[in-house]
């Protein structure tokens, strides 16, 4: 068989492959063109009978032809296979707009979210977070904080006392944690204490016998009201955005000078004014003396605010009771 004959065989096979329209067509072509009875197989089988000088060139041609045909078969197979799979997939029917599989996610309480933000603000400044007992001694909650005997806050109309022990109470502020921290740690000290506090208020939209405070305390050499103002300004901007801050003088037994911390605020009616958000001041020397710090060596500032109040202001929650009811319609809004 001459070289042109081989070429013709090869061309005919490739043409048949190209014209196969389905995988089963292609299978038939494969048998016709490369099966044992095919002309190409016959040719290859007959090579041994050729005169020796023809065996080389003809064999080479024939092998090339076989490889080309097999490659064409494989390529055509891939093409037809992909087309048939595509047609099968395209035939599928489903509504992709159906709800996806449910993975219900719960919510951290709004108070937790705000507390963590506050903590992160102060952690970034280098403060530590401390906590202490909620069932407290009268001394830690009042006496050490320079609250005189007979002060209205010390009366049973304002403070929860324990049955049978008038020296024990539910802390009315997180400030006793300051006292405990100062007793346990020498200065310098930079801490915040978030936690639950208790006051004997009836439950209504703005009062709760249990609520949450964050208290901050910084004691070091050379601290002044200017550091207090800088710290509060930083905190307010981080938590409530760009706002004006002002310090209005006030009175607390355990700080002196004492200030009310107010931020500029626009209410939902568009009226602007000042909103009290915290109490603060320079730690009263009597407090340092109560815990064994030397008020001539160190100064300090303290501030405290209601987490509940910050959360309500920031998120527009109208009623404090919502925070304590456990109503999922409320909780899930802050997921």
């Amino acid at each position: 068989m001459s070289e042109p004959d081989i070429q013709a065989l090869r061309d005919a096979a490739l043409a048949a492959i190209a014209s196969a329209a389905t995988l089963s067509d292609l299978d038939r072509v494969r048998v016709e063109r490369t099966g044992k009875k095919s002309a190409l197989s016959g040719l290859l089988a007959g090579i041994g009978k050729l005169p020796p000088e023809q065996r080389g060139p003809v064999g080479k041609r024939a092998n090339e032809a076989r490889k080309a045909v097999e490659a064409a078969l494989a390529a055509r197979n891939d093409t037809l296979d992909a087309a048939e799979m595509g047609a099968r997939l395209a035939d599928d029917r489903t509504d992709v707009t159906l709800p996806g599989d449910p993975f219900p996610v719960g919510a951290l309480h709004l108070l937790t979210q705000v507390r963590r933000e506050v903590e992160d603000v102060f952690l970034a400044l280098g403060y530590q977070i401390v906590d202490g007992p909620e069932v407290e001694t009268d001394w830690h909650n009042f006496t050490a904080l320079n609250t005189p005997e007979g002060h209205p806050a010390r009366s049973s109309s304002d403070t929860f006392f324990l049955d049978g022990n008038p020296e024990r109470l539910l802390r009315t502020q997180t400030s006793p944690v300051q006292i405990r921290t100062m007793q346990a740690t020498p200065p310098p000290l930079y801490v915040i204490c978030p936690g639950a506090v208790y006051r004997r208020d009836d439950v209504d939209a703005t009062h709760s016998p249990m609520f949450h405070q964050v208290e901050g305390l910084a004691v070091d050499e050379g601290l002044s009201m200017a550091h207090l103002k800088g710290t509060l300004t930083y905190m307010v901007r981080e938590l409530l955005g760009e706002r004006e801050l002002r310090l209005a003088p006030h009175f607390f037994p355990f700080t002196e000078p004492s200030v009310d911390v107010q931020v500029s605020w626009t209410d939902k009616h568009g009226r602007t004014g000042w909103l009290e958000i915290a109490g603060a001041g320079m730690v009263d020397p009597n407090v340092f003396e109560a815990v064994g710090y030397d008020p001539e060596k160190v100064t300090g500032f303290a501030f405290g605010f209601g987490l509940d109040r910050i959360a309500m202001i920031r998120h527009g929650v109208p009623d404090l009771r919502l925070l304590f009811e456990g109503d999922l319609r409320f909780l899930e809004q802050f997921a």
Partner: protein
Amino acid sequence: MRLPLEWLREYVDPGLATDALAEALIQSGTIVEDVHELGVSAANGNLDNFRIGRVVSVEQHPNADRLRVCQVDLGEPQPRQIVCGAPNVAAGQTVGVALPGAVLPGNEPLETATLRGVESSGMILSARELELGDDHSGIMVLADDLAPGASLSGVLAISETVLELELTSNRPDCMAIYGMAREVHAATGAPLADLDVSEPHVAGAGTIADYVSLTVEAPDLCPRYMARVLTDVPIGPSPAWMQARIEAAGMRAINNVVDITNYVMLLTGQPLHAFDLDRMAGPAVVVRRATQGESATTLDGQVRALDPSMLVICDAERPAVIAGIMGAEDVEVSEATTRLLLEAATFDGPTTLRTALALGLRSESSARFEKRLPVELPARAMAIASRLLVELCGAKLVPGTLDVGASAGTSAPVRLRHARLDAVLGMPTTPQRSQEILERLDFRVAAGVDEHMIEAPFERRNDVTREADLIEEVGRIQGFEALPELLPAIVGQGRRTPPQALRDRLGCRAADLGFSEVVTYRFVPEADADRLMMAADDPRRQVVRLANPLSDEMAVMRRSMLPGLLRAAAHNQAHQRPSGRLFEIGRTYAPRGDGLADEPEFFAGLVFGPSPKAHWRAPAATTDIHLAVGLAGALVATAGCAVTPHGNSAPYFHPVRQARLMADGHERPIGWAGEVHPLVLRAFGVSGPAAAIVLDLGSLLEVAPTAPRAFVDIISVPVATRDLALVVDEAVRAADLIATAHGAGVPLVRHVELFDHYVGEQVEMGTASVALRLVLADPGRTLTDEEISGGVAAVVAALTEQHGAHLR
């Protein structure tokens, strides 16, 4: 405290608009809670329409029995004709008149009107129409010496602005108009007029000793007691201007004597009391402790039981006044009174507060005494009140004053170092400036180069005793506007402690698992222990109990986290949420010998309600113990831990379907999981089923790994997996099978998983079919077939030996 600005301006007038004045007060430490506008509007020249008039004549209205037709001189060429319905109008009276165009509070502008055929061009005013008081019985009759046509607002505060102040407990001196005048003076620099404390002319007969004697038997509770007698007191209304001021300050005008005592209290901060001398039993005043069983009927008609902790002012027989709080009916000033005993005294603050609280009776007077008043103040108030009684009422002051106790206290000088002032405030203040501020506040300043020596005025003696107090005074008057903003340079880095970090991680994981966080009241009803079916001797019935709870529902501190979650679940079920997942992280409170409490922290989660088919495809998960155990496993994994469920017997869980969650090698339970007992659910009003998880955070922290975990190479080597199908007695517990397989497979069996468990028709009665998957590997090398089959055989042998298990 209500501060009428008209009254304030008698002593200090900074010439500021109300807003600016309020701002100046706020910036210097007085909280202005509200601004009340009383009386007629001052806008648009309205005040010009209110004039003084003299009634020239009064005639009966021809067509109306109740109306009179008055001719009123308003300083104009002709009198005006005004129709008036008041019964008390009479010729010759000086009255207030609103002219046409005037706007009265809550009304349209007045117009010239024709009333039953008679023209009326104006209105003769009553006190109530001007919001000066409640008196609507007739028109307001003014003093005769006022000129007709003059502006009414010139003599009467018909347009008044009142600031509502919130005062702090350290400033009783501000519970006085004059005290606030001093604050305004200090804050604004406007000049402060002196208080007129001149004594009146003495005209009464005899001396005071002829009228009454005074004995103070309890000087500890009454450091000073002053008394005077006035005779020929004509009881009647006080002048309109005084009534207007008293009402604007929030008290009620009563009669001239009572009004003057209240007026002087409002002005000076010193409460006064007037007794009808003729109604006292005997000419003696005794200041003593009440006796047990004694009582007094106070002015409000209530019988008050007294005891020896209380101080009373008695006549010869009985208590006439509960000291500093309220007088008794018996000796009250009445229409018939002609002779007065006037008291100005200092009573002990804490005693006054305790007595007022015990009697449930707080008055303007007690609110001042309870904050401790200086002994100098009674003399000041006594002088002013005496003078007003003489000058305004024509009473005769009997010569002499009974005065027992200290007439002056001492104020120790306090040092103010200039350097200290600057260091605390964080900005420089010159010595001249601090001196100026303190002197404006009435402090005596001995100026120095390095420091001032300061003496406080007696009103501030209790409040300003230390350098820190002086720094506060200078700071607050100077204001904090100009203060720079600095951040402290803190050495070291803030980070959460392990418990804090764990608490936060657990919360996040719980939320990821579908739980929403609640915050519930930590005080709970004591009956919660019964609702949780705690045994009578259960130690968790020992609770921290409040002495003064708001209610029985908030009586004790919680010992368990579950009631709060169950109540929240009930709340949700009552509001169209039949099912859900809730959690709380918080403390419980166990009483301790020292009166404080152990306050361990817990995580508690509750899955409540039936699982409705809430999704078109998802199968409903079953709310049961196995769900709870699975959730618990996912939760403790946040701490890098694993727990194994063991049998448990808590009263509030289903007796069988509950587990204690234990960590390997740790005796204290990490937590508990279980289906909540149906009777507990019923007690809390929750529709079941419900399953709960409680984790003891302290215990979890003990087992949480702290060291960084080392990598184990089970990645680069093949891992062999072998499944065992076993038949065991139904009573054999899964956790025991797993533990045995683990133990026997050491070290090659790295993981054992129970992936199938079947009890039913396909297996013999009383047995269970269990499938375990063993994962075998040795880090760093490939196991041989012999090693693998040897390891599996050891596990099977142990399971057979210890649990009677055999391969199917």
